[in-house]
């Protein structure tokens, strides 16, 4: 009889300290594993470990950057281990397109951030977390909606008609987030609440990248220069953001549990007038308007016109008791919860990473919320010595409800309604219902309906589901030659359900009939990639890494929508309760084929060379220009590897890099090059009669926008890596810009999209990391990020041509894209003498009215006096993070800011217009009242008449959007190893965190970055109100088993 035990029955606890041979310092985070098993542990902060193994076992001690050691366990219970640095491995691996590269070999400009470093608690999506963390990448938080996204702009804006979004690559799968005008809320807020309009509202409110669970992210690499992005060819011109998710580790097991609970409030409320100030203001505005029309301020109401009457109680503001804070009424303190669990395990041949999470964010505006479930499984398996397979599978389902927070309150913007409503109106009536008195509408008290009724009467429910599966098989043909083939598929659906009851006013039309709309979209995208890689080191000094590949990708987008009206009641908010009388169904597709190749060569790790080329064919482009070629070339010089640098001790690494290459931007519609017809309706016998007319001009020459970029870079680290600096200088020339070239009306088309413009972006990026203090118990390190970019249009369709991006912005040669083009308000006429002889906007301009600059000096102020008064792009953005660690306690403070951008406070044309109708931002209290009381010289007098362009577009509403923000304060306590193991855990940390503590800015709106245009970056900088940013206080804990 054979008794075979593979393990002896007696186990001993072995403990000890692992230190480094060079420094003698204890090493935390070192793996100590019983060889051949999954029994392992990790050294704690003090380098100590403790593990139970049978005698005679072998401990495998390993850590990145150190040579692995194996130690046989004998009779001792304490084994101290000394590890030797593996200089080769100390080199970080950076993810580049279609592969990885050692940081020391890199010749392109790539910024890497680790997932753990950027992770912000209580935040739904990773893009919101990147602000101030990556040099060269401007992240703007344009809206604070739960589950919403941020705008990411790499090295400036460079496309006017095409999109400006970077390409996102998730575990090797390029995703087209469908940006551009997809989340531009300007196009809905205000126009069409008919059933057809409701059926056509397709903006995104939920971030399309929400299926990427931030907790799953291992690292984010941003490819910025052409050498790095050219491998992505026609999609690389706006930069590439590569996201790598966590994968298991061989021979290790770990279960992680993260739980956090937070409380949010609106970070910054707008200071409005109170009831007394409002009453005085309203009386002022009405009296002035009546006097202007020929009356006297003392005239009673019955001789005045309706629009100039003043309620008797407003003559005595002190007597008004009611002082409603309408922001208080629609805002609330809202909880946010996040639960994440992940398991990370593996043996010799396979590794798994499985995770699941639930995120629940209630919104700071009542009735809004966002919830999301995520699941992921990443599996890698070595089938044989030569064959590896792997899969990355993720699924997510999110849903949310959003209020209408953009536009005028006449179209249902509940945020504007709360700001504009008179504080003299009570919230509830005597029966407990929402207060409403038609007299308040008639008397013009900034009131159309009770904001609570508007909140309740409008619902915007969204659902988003995504499944992404990318699977690869890798075969090692011979030594160094590998074939990798992958097949992936992305499937996503999106549902938008809109309802607008008759309680939500349409300007002064009471009981505007209820309408509803539903849109369902389904997207299927598949990708096949095949690459052949060859890696070899010749003669010790020549290192070669070559790649050749072929990919194909196809996308199919199916959208169906329907709209209904004629609802007999407002009880049921579904189409079924009304009559469906509008809708559409469409299928839009694109296809792409690509060939690519890259060679990386390094001589003695000193002289580096990279050359790439990619050839892309896309269905989006005209018959004659369907294929494009994108080459790039870069060199690097590791000066620190030279022999003559050996003596220079304080310099650890010094590298110079230079690159030049081409990449493209293909973000235009799928069928822009085809001459299409559109329906236009007419009327027949009491019914609709559809007609068809040409709506786009075909263009066989339509092709990519091409970006030619030069980049010079410097990487240096000094004083034993205590100071590391990365600096990049770049110039990007974008040609063949896709522009909607305006055509003369006589052609029958407004415009046709052609490749015709040139734009330049140039700038500098700096990333500095310092270890300021490093002692036994205390460490302080800093991370500074700085980016400055200048944008200039070099050429447009016509000599001296000009494009109107919006009513307030133009693009013209010599200035940045979308510069603000407005009448320049230079002050207020303080008295009648100043008005005499000045250039006037109206013959009857008086003291107290705005004074404008007469740009063309023709003695009159009109639209020809508009000029460029600013632009929405910052001169520079920066981020400054400090981390202080004392024993087990760690405090981190992150600041970030932006300087030089302007923002047009479009909402100001309603709540800063000094008309004497809507409630106003407190700034309006500093208005001109009389020559003796001229106010701040910026706000004109209150008058309910726009003859002097008091509330029309002008630079009066353009503000400096520079800011400094205390983005995050985080205090973390890590339970000592001994205590943790007593609870049978590997680790336990608790943290307290504040996000958006304070933003220092002179901007009068909710946030200086607030922009109604979403990711339609070209219309950025127009603030017609959006969901305000929250300030969040979070407590949480992380447990590791």
């Amino acid at each position, binding site marked *: 009889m054979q008794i075979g035990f593979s393990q002896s029955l007696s186990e001993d606890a072995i403990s000890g300290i692992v230190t480094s041979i060079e420094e003698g310092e204890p090493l935390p985070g070192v793996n100590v594993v019983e060889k051949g098993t999954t029994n392992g542990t990790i050294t704690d902060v003090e380098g100590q470990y403790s593990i139970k193994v049978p005698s005679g076992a072998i401990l495998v001690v390993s850590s990145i950057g150190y040579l692995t050691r194996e130690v046989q366990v004998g009779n001792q219970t304490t084994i101290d281990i000394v590890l030797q640095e593996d200089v080769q491995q100390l080199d970080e691996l950076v993810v580049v397109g279609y592969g990885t590269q050692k940081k020391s070999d890199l010749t392109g400009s790539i910024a890497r951030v680790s997932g753990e470093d950027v992770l912000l608690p209580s935040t739904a999506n990773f893009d919101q977390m990147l602000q101030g963390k990556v040099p060269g990448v401007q992240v703007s938080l344009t809206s604070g909606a739960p589950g919403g996204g941020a705008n990411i702009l790499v090295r400036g804006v460079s496309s006017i008609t095409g999109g400006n979004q970077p390409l996102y690559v998730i575990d090797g799968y390029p995703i087209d987030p469908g940006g551009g005008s997809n989340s531009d809320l300007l196009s809905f807020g205000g126009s069409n609440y*008919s*059933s*057809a309009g409701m059926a056509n509202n397709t903006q995104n409110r939920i971030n399309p990248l929400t299926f990427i669970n931030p907790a799953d992210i291992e690292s984010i690499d941003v490819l910025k220069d052409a050498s790095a992005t050219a491998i992505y060819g026609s999609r690389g011109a706006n930069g590439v953001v590569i996201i790598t998710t966590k994968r298991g580790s061989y021979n290790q097991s770990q279960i992680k549990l993260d739980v956090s609970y937070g409380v949010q409030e609106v970070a910054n409320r707008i200071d409005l007038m109170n009831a007394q100030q409002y009453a005085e203001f309203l009386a002022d505005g009405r009296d002035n*308007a009546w006097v202007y029309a020929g009356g006297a301020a003392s005239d009673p109401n019955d001789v005045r016109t*309706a629009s100039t009457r003043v309620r008797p109680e407003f003559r005595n503001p002190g007597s008004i008791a009611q002082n409603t804070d309408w922001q208080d009424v629609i805002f609330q303190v809202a909880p946010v919860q996040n639960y994440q669990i992940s398991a990370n395990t593996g043996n010799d041949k396979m590794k798994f990473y499985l995770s699941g999470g639930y995120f629940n964010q209630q919104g700071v505006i009542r009735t809004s919320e966002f919830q999301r479930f995520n699941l992921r499984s990443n599996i890698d398996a070595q089938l044989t010595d030569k064959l590896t397979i792997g899969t990355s599978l993720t699924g997510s389902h999110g849903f949310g409800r959003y209020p209408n927070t953009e536009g005028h309150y006449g179209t249902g913007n509940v945020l504007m309604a709360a700001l504009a409503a008179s504080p003299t109106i009570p919230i509830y009536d005597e029966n407990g219902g929402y207060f409403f008195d*038609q007299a308040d509408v*008639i008397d*013009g008290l900034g009131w159309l309906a009770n904001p609570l009724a508007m909140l309740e009467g409008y619902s915007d429910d969204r659902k988003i589901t995504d499944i992404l599966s990318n699977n690869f098989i890798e075969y090692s043909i011979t030594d160094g030659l590998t074939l990798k083939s992958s097949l992936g598929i992305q499937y996503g659906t999106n549902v938008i359900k809109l309802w607008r009851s008759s309680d939500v006013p349409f300007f*002064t*039309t009471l009981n*505007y009939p209820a309408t509803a709309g539903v849109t369902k979209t389904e997207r299927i995208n598949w990708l096949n990639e095949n690459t052949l890689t060859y890696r070899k080191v010749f003669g010790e000094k020549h290192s070669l890494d070559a790649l050749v590949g072929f990919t194909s990708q*196809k996308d199919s987008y199916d959208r169906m929508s329907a709209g209904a009206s004629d609802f007999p009641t407002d009880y049921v908010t579904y189409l079924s309760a009304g009559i469906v*009388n509008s809708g559409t169904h*469409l*299928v*839009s597709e694109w*296809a*792409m*084929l690509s060939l690519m190749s890259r060679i990386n060569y390094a001589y003695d790790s000193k002289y580096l060379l990279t050359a790439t080329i990619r050839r892309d*064919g896309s*269905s989006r482009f005209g018959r004659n220009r*369907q294929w494009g070629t994108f080459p790039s070339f870069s060199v690097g010089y590791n000066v620190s590897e030279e022999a003559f640098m050996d003596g220079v001790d304080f310099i650890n690494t010094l590298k110079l890099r230079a690159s030049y290459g081409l990449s493209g931007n293909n973000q235009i519609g799928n*069928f822009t090059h*085809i*001459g299409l*017809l*559109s329906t*236009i*309706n*007419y*009327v027949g016998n*009491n019914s*609709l009669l559809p*007609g*068809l*007319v*040409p709506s786009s*001009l*075909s*263009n066989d020459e339509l092709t990519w926008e091409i970006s030619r970029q030069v980049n010079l870079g410097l990487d240096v680290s000094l004083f034993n890596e205590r100071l590391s600096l990365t600096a990049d200088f770049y110039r990007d020339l974008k040609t063949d810009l896709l522009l909607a*070239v*305006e*055509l*003369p*009306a*006589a*052609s*029958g*088309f*407004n415009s*046709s999209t052609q490749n015709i413009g040139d734009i330049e972006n140039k700038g500098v990026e700096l990333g500095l990391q310092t270890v300021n203090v490093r002692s036994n118990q205390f460490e302080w390190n800093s991370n500074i990020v700085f980016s400055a970019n200048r944008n200039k249009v070099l050429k447009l369709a*016509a*000599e*001296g*041509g000009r494009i109107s991006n919006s009513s307030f912005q133009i693009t013209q040669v010599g200035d940045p894209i979308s510069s603000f083009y407005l009448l320049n308000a230079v002050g207020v006429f303080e008295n009648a003498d100043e008005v005499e002889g000045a250039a006037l906007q109206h013959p009857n301009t008086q003291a107290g009215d705005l004074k404008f600059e007469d740009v063309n000096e023709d003695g009159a102020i*009109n639209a*020809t006096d508009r000029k460029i008064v600013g632009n929405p792009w910052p001169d520079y953005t920066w981020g400054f993070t400090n981390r202080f660690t004392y024993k087990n306690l760690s405090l981190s403070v992150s600041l970030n800011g932006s300087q030089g951008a302007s923002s047009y406070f479009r909402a100001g044309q309603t709540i800063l217009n000094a008309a004497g109708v809507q409630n106003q931002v407190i700034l309006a209290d500093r208005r001109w009242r009389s020559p003796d009381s001229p106010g701040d010289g910026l706000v004109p007098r209150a008058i309910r*008449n*726009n003859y002097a362009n008091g*509330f029309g577009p002008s630079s009066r509403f353009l503000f400096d959007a520079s800011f400094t923000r205390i983005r995050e304060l985080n205090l973390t306590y890590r339970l000592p190893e001994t205590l943790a193991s007593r609870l049978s855990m590997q680790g336990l940390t608790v943290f307290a965190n504040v996000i958006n503590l304070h933003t220092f800015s002179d901007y009068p709106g909710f946030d200086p970055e607030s922009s109604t245009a979403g990711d339609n970056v070209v219309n950025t900088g127009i603030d017609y109100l959006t969901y305000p940013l929250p300030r969040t206080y979070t407590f949480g804990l992380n447990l590791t088993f």
Partner: protein
Amino acid sequence: MKIYLSLAVLLVLSACDDFLNVQPEFRVSEDNFYENENDFETALIGVYATTQQLHNVTLLYLTELSTDNAEIQWTSPTSSEMEFDESNVTSINTLVNSVWNVSYTAISRANNLLTRLEDSSLGEPANSQFRGEVLFLRAYHYFNLVRLFGDLPVVTDPFRSPDEVLSYDMSRQSAETIYQIIISDLTTAEDLLANTDDLSKSRASVGAVKTLLGKVHLTRQNHAEAAEVLKEVIDQGTYALQPDYQTLFTNGNTELLETIFEIKYLSGNLGEGNSFSSVFTPPRFDMAIFPGNMQGSGRIVPTADVAESYEAGDLRRSASIEDSVLLVDGTFAENIYGLKFVDFTTGLVGDGGINFIALRYADVLLMYAEALNELGSTNEALTYLNEVRDRSELEQIAGVNQEEFRRIVENERRVEFVSEGHRWFDLIRTGRAQTVMNAYFADRGLNFTLEDHELLMPIPQDEIDIDPNLAQNIGY
């Protein structure tokens, strides 16, 4: 072996090209349209729809608000609107831009359709009928444009690529050239539509063509030709004056006997309504004249001046103008507003369902009278003038000379066609614009003037920005 390899490569390459050839299946493209009669009719409807857009108020700013017929009551109009009220139009006026744009869009769609009809194998009678209708529409729009702007770019061909547009000569041709095109189009249309008489009045017809031709001749002071063609319309016998004037302007004014060419609208929140209810009525929150107490916008409201220019007992007044408005609280407030085409049955802004009558029989009669008077036959002219006055139960007029008759017919046209977009064209045609307008301003103590160069609208600045070679009208 080599063959197989090349075959494989060829197969892959052709598959590649196919793979990249993605067509929008959910849209009609120009390659698979314009095949049969239905296609052409649908395209023709598109041109009518474009014409409908022009009339949904914008044109009235240029033809009514610019005159003593209408003024703004709203306290905060846009600068573009104010420019018409104050006779101070600039080249960046958005309404002028809009009229130019929509009119030329219609013309270009007409050109496209005409070329395709001529190239097609569509048979008779559809081919002639459609061509006739298209030519009428093209002439209609060119006529508006030439009267408003003077010299114009002439485009008579369709475009198939941006290069074709950029290489086309879009410089301004003389007004005379335009008129020749208009007259030629209308004469051809007359023949083509000779046998078509059963279409809706929202479509072209021989009567419409001749009426428009008459108006063209009259504008060019060719009174003999004008009289001749207008008499043909009268003799056709298919039109007669509505006994009740008001029926022309209220709900149900479809296919009326007096209508020669109408623009149809439809309410029901389908996007096919008009905004006349909004622009002609006062900007008050407290009116009770519409369902849901819908507010007016007070943009093109009849003036006190026109309200006072009716003779006593003129039945037309109560159908055109109201002096006081009913308020929510049951009282009346003194406030003039317009009634024509105002749809009191709908409380949705922009959803008015009353049709706009662009050409009607009363116009033919008054134009004929004007032409006859200019030819010296004042007495014969009086017959036709009095026919129109009869309908409004006004006294017949007799024993006036040519000059007096001119004043009378001018005033008659004013009260007959108030709010219908005739006033500006009438004043320009008779050379009376400056006299009338400057007297009107002086009367009201307003220091605005209609200058010489302001008898033509400015070419939109946007168009000049696109094509700097386009010359601007003098004075702008």
